[in-house]
């Protein structure tokens, strides 16, 4: 558990295994109830939008689960009987991340073609460098900066979820980063198609642009689809190629943060690094590799991806329950400013690249 959230830490339980496990049930039931409420809210809004033919921003269940958890813990508080179960959220997070590996096929990277792949690499490098510089300039906490950099370079919410565990970021930082990425995603849903039409971009060029510059997969797909079916296909392909790099980028950040905590000059650095290294990242890479090698059928991949969503549903209700609103308010609007400036520049850079290379696309 992160130090900032110590306010409701569960006391150490010295009872035997079975009563201890039973003691977790009320809290897990609370996580499930709040998370499920988040899922229902997302679906109800989407249904309303469809029925009334309006494009409403897709606010994912993870953010609703955080909001509902936040409301409970910062108003009525979490009664003692629930606390042990609520603190299992980290287990659900890591299990969900390992299962999420099934959605990231390493082979997807190759389907995109040479020029577009080079753009994905450039986008990753520019986003990470830019967000890190902006975060330092506006003096964000280093871990929040890392989360925003990962979120903007790869794939919004999933990447932030994966990175939160890997670099042991605070719940407040993860909540903020997810909210910022989703707010910007909602904005891009309206802005990108308008700009694409104004510039008369081809389906391929627009799809590639959206796939490179919009961070959340749902919003990237939707923005592509608002332009044309063909654009949606290119958007999904470019976005999937970015998504497939998640393991490597999170791995890089995990190693960076594990190394950073080694300040006193420990003798056996490799052993120390291995000790600090988040082992579930290896589980993620293993499942991703198995899926790439064709170990699972398409329906099985969908089932495992759904299972990871259920795990995240429990996780983020827990993150909300552990998030202290006073800590969140201390961050102010600076993280949102970093996200907005960063996204704006990334959208500009990728658009310039695509316009310059449009004859080869």
């Amino acid at each position: 558990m992160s130090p900032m959230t110590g306010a409701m830490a569960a006391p150490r339980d010295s009872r035997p295994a079975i009563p201890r496990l039973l003691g977790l049930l009320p809290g897990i039931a609370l996580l499930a109830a709040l998370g499920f409420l988040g899922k229902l809210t997302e679906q109800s809004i989407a249904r309303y939008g469809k029925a009334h033919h309006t494009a409403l921003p897709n606010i994912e269940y993870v953010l609703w689960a955080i909001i509902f958890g936040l409301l409970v813990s910062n108003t009525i508080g979490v009664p003692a009987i629930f606390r042990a179960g609520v603190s299992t959220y980290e287990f659900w997070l890591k299990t969900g991340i390992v299962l999420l590996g099934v959605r990231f096929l390493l082979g997807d990277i190759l389907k995109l073609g040479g020029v577009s792949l080079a753009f994905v690499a450039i986008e990753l490098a520019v986003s990470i460098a830019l967000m890190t510089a902006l975060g330092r300039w506006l003096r964000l906490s280093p871990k929040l900066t890392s989360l925003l950099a990962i979120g903007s370079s790869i794939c919004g919410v999933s990447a932030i979820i994966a990175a939160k565990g890997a670099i042991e970021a605070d719940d407040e930082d993860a909540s903020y980063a997810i909210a910022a990425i989703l707010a910007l995603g909602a904005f891009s849903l309206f802005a990108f198609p308008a700009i694409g039409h104004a510039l008369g971009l081809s389906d391929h060029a627009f799809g590639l642009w959206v796939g490179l510059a919009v961070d959340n997969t749902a919003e990237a797909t939707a923005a592509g689809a608002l332009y044309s079916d063909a654009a949606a296909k290119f958007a999904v392909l470019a976005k999937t190629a970015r998504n497939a790099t998640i393991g490597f980028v999170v791995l890089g950040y995990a190693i960076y943060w594990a190394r950073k905590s080694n300040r006193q000059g420990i003798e056996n650095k490799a052993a120390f690094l291995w000790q600090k290294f988040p082992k579930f990242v290896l589980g993620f890479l293993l499942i991703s590799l198995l899926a790439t090698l064709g170990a699972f059928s398409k329906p099985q991949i969908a089932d495992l991806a759904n299972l990871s969503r259920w795990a995240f549903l429990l996780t983020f209700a827990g993150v909300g329950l552990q998030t202290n609103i006073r800590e969140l308010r201390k961050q102010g609007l600076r993280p949102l400013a970093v996200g907005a400036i960063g996204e704006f520049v990334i959208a500009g850079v990728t658009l310039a690249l695509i316009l310059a290379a449009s004859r080869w696309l």
Partner: protein
Amino acid sequence: MADQRKLTLDWWSVIAALAAAALVRFNILPHIPW
């Protein structure tokens, strides 16, 4: 101590996820809806 707890949690989550993947792979777990 905290590191040890985290380590155990990491491995448990990998074991749980791999077990779930195996159950789905060999059709022991039924279809999981969302």
